[in-house]
């Protein structure tokens, strides 16, 4: 009983609080039962909402931020990896210092018709153009004398990298070059008389002139262009001409369609 009576007066002051907020209502409220019931709801509800509104649940927010940062990081790395991983051989070829890309600068000279007899080429050594029906064998063949351009161009059409060096290059330099060629199909090597530089590397449409067999751009050139530069994917390098000599060897007309 005493508790209930105590509760009664205690409620009264609390009535004042909502009354202040609800001033316009107070004059209208004549019956005590109504405000009492209204007050009963009033104090409970304001208290709870205020507390909840002020509380920020930092745990989940931090978690989301952390996950977000992680996600952005992974996506960023993923994009980086995909872009880097998908760097094409063309891009890597373009990144080789001093390389000439005739596919861009002079695509008109890179015709690929089969023609008998000697052909003229714009560059020395040639990097493409009309060529003989027969290709020079490019199974890692190291030729010790000049070969016919007309056959070598056909080899490059098949995807070979043609390593040439100036006739008379010191033997140790020749040996270093040969080491990169021998045993590797889609590679061939031969001397060229009166070459402008000590070494010249060719693939279809590409050329790189160098002075030393120790230059690490040689490996870069081979890695970027060997097979990749092909004009006829999956064409072979065997069954070609294995003889040296700069005069092209014409095959019978029956072979004209083969390449």
């Amino acid at each position, binding site marked *: 009983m005493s508790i209930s009576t105590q509760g009664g007066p205690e409620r009264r002051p609390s009535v004042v609080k909502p009354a202040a907020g*609800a001033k*316009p*209502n107070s004059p*209208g*409220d004549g019956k005590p039962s*109504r405000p009492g019931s*209204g007050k009963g*709801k*009033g104090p409970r*509800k*304001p208290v*709870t*909402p205020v507390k*909840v*509104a002020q509380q920020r649940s930092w745990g*989940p927010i931090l978690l*989301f931020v952390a*996950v*977000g940062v992680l*996600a952005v990081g*992974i*996506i960023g790395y*993923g994009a980086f*990896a*995909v872009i880097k*991983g*998908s760097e094409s*051989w063309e891009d890597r070829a373009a990144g080789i210092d001093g390389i000439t890309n005739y596919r861009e600068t002079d695509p008109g000279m890179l015709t690929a018709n089969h023609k008998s007899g000697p052909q003229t080429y714009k560059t020395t050594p040639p990097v493409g153009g009309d060529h003989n029906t027969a290709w020079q064998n490019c*199974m*890692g*063949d*190291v030729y010790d004398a000049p070969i016919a351009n007309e056959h070598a161009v056909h080899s490059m059409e098949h995807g070979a990298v043609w390593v040439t060096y100036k006739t008379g290059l010191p033997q140790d330099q020749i040996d270093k070059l040969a*080491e990169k060629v*021998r*045993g*590797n*199909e*889609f590679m061939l090597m031969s001397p060229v008389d009166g070459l402008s530089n000590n070494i010249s590397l060719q693939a279809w449409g590409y050329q790189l002139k160098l002075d030393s067999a120790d230059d690490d751009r040689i490996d870069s050139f*081979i*890695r*970027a262009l*060997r*097979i*990749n530069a092909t004009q006829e994917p*999956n064409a*072979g*390098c*065997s*069954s070609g001409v*294995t003889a040296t000599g700069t005069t092209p060897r014409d095959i019978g007309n029956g072979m004209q369609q083969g390449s």
Partner: protein
Amino acid sequence: MSAATTSSAPSTDGSEEVAPRRHLGTLWIALAIVVGLALGYTAGLLTPAVTAPGDDSVEAGFVRDMSTHHAQAVEMAMIMHTKAQDEQVASLAADIAITQQGQIGTMSAWLRDWNLNPTGSQPRMAWMPNSQGSLTNGLMPGMATPEQLTQLREATGVEAEKLFLDLMLTHHLGGIHMAEEVVDLSDDKDIDWLAGTMVASQQREIQAIQTIKSELPAN
């Protein structure tokens, strides 16, 4: 009036209490979905790149080296095919050339699928443990030397056929050795399948080579 106001008071309280939380909650859920999708998409993008054999992997090394090894078998078989007089030798040469060139095509397609180049950064045979010394002048086990190839080109008749069979037998033994190694080293089911068939079919061809050789006339 009074009823309306009393009812409105709790409702405003309720809206302040519940509605913002709902908005926030929806936002977080939306963000979580976006982040989840982005993560999933990225994982999907990266998975092939991560799971595909790398540039210096056993698989890439084998595929590149076996392609080169095969290419020489094709070369020898084509040399022989043009001049074989014995029908069995001509047939064997054609079989070897066509089969191995086809397998080169399969292997080079894998390299493309793996986003790898035909030429790797690793030396020949580096994928095989204890492979030091297995290269002779850049040639892998069983491969014929340039001199032997010249001999084969210049030889004629039964002499050429016997030389071809001898060179091919040695070539197959080297190839089988490499293929057996990769079956041990790799768990890639495509690699294991192709290398497994190489081992089996080249062993059968070795038996055929020995049979044909015994039936060739003495020169």
